[in-house]
């Protein structure tokens, strides 16, 4: 007997929609991390003084920087929404025999997102 082991091609994630969407969800972390690096650079420039900070802000006006921000925002939204929608997998609450419906676990995530975003927006814009 020599069982045949089928090789797994490196392109396995291109074969089916769900696998591709999974890889995209994982790929979003690259953009989330890249934006974080940019943010750290911004803080460093701020530390260096007003001139350094303003020249950094000027460099963000280049078409390439704007394109990066648009793409990073799209990936960050995809990241947030896919993970929010997966929270009922990890969190379950039961009332007697009944399991709390998934939407009851997803909805508070969105609510917290909106409330925290509004608070940060208010804090930034009022100043």
């Amino acid at each position, binding site marked *: *007997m*020599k*069982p*045949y*082991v*089928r090789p*797994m091609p490196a392109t*396995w*994630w291109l*074969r*089916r929609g*769900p*696998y591709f969407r*999974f890889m995209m969800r*994982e790929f979003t972390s690259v953009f989330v991390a890249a934006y974080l690096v940019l943010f750290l650079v911004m803080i460093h420039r701020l530390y260096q003084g007003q001139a350094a900070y303003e020249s950094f802000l000027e460099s963000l006006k280049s078409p390439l920087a704007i394109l990066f921000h648009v793409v990073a925002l799209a990936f960050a939204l995809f990241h947030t929404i896919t993970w929010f929608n*997966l929270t*009922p*997998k*990890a*969190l*379950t609450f*039961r009332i*007697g*025999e*009944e*399991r709390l419906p998934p939407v009851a676990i997803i909805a508070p995530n969105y609510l917290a997102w909106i409330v925290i975003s509004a608070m940060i927006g208010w804090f930034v814009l009022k100043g």
Partner: protein
Amino acid sequence: MANSSPTETIRLEVFRYSPEKDEAPRFQTYEVPFRKDWVVLDALNYVKDQSDGTLSFRWSCRMGVCGSCGMMVNGIPKLSCAAFLRDYYPNPIRVEPLANFPVLRDLVFQLDSFIEKLKSVQPWIVRKEEKPVSEGEYLQTPAEHARYKDFGMCINCMLCYAACPVIGLEPNFLGPAAIALAQRYNFDSRDQGRSQRQEVVASHEGIWQCTLVGECSAVCPKHVDPAGAIQQAKVTSTMDWFQEVLWPWGTKR
């Protein structure tokens, strides 16, 4: 047949592999009558009975209970007794053995690795001490039963292993069904074996291999949701870790 004329046929492209003759697998094409009430398993049985008796495949109950007839149908793990020809007609149907398992012959694959993984999680009620029969049965409320019922629906069909790319890339991964069944007993009010199972479930080959692709739950014919079982085990294992760090003298689990 009244529901369709006998001239209508559908093409099956079946994965063939003979360990005596073949170095590599090949695909063989069969034309079988198309009937609206036929499933892929009916078509394979037609081939076996009418045209090619050498075709090998596993099956038993034909009603989605035994979990024997899992196959890749057009690249998606399915119970072949529940995959209707009418959902594919007039396109051809490609039938392969469940992915991520070594192939023994045609559609028959080697399931030893799965059986070993299943045994390793002790999928039975573990008691520290059995109470004598004279004290009666272990009672359970409907709410306690509901806690694990869904995970207990598993029929060991292995579709989730075929759907899981982590199994394909890391064959030692404990896998969806074994972890779901570990959770089925962990959540059972009569069971006291969680810390024993935890040595396997929370090991390097266990839950932490899972990257939450989620396809195990999508293909499960019994709606077991192994992906949920694994994520919930990750949460409780993380809580265990915090408890050990913040409360090391309290060993009670």
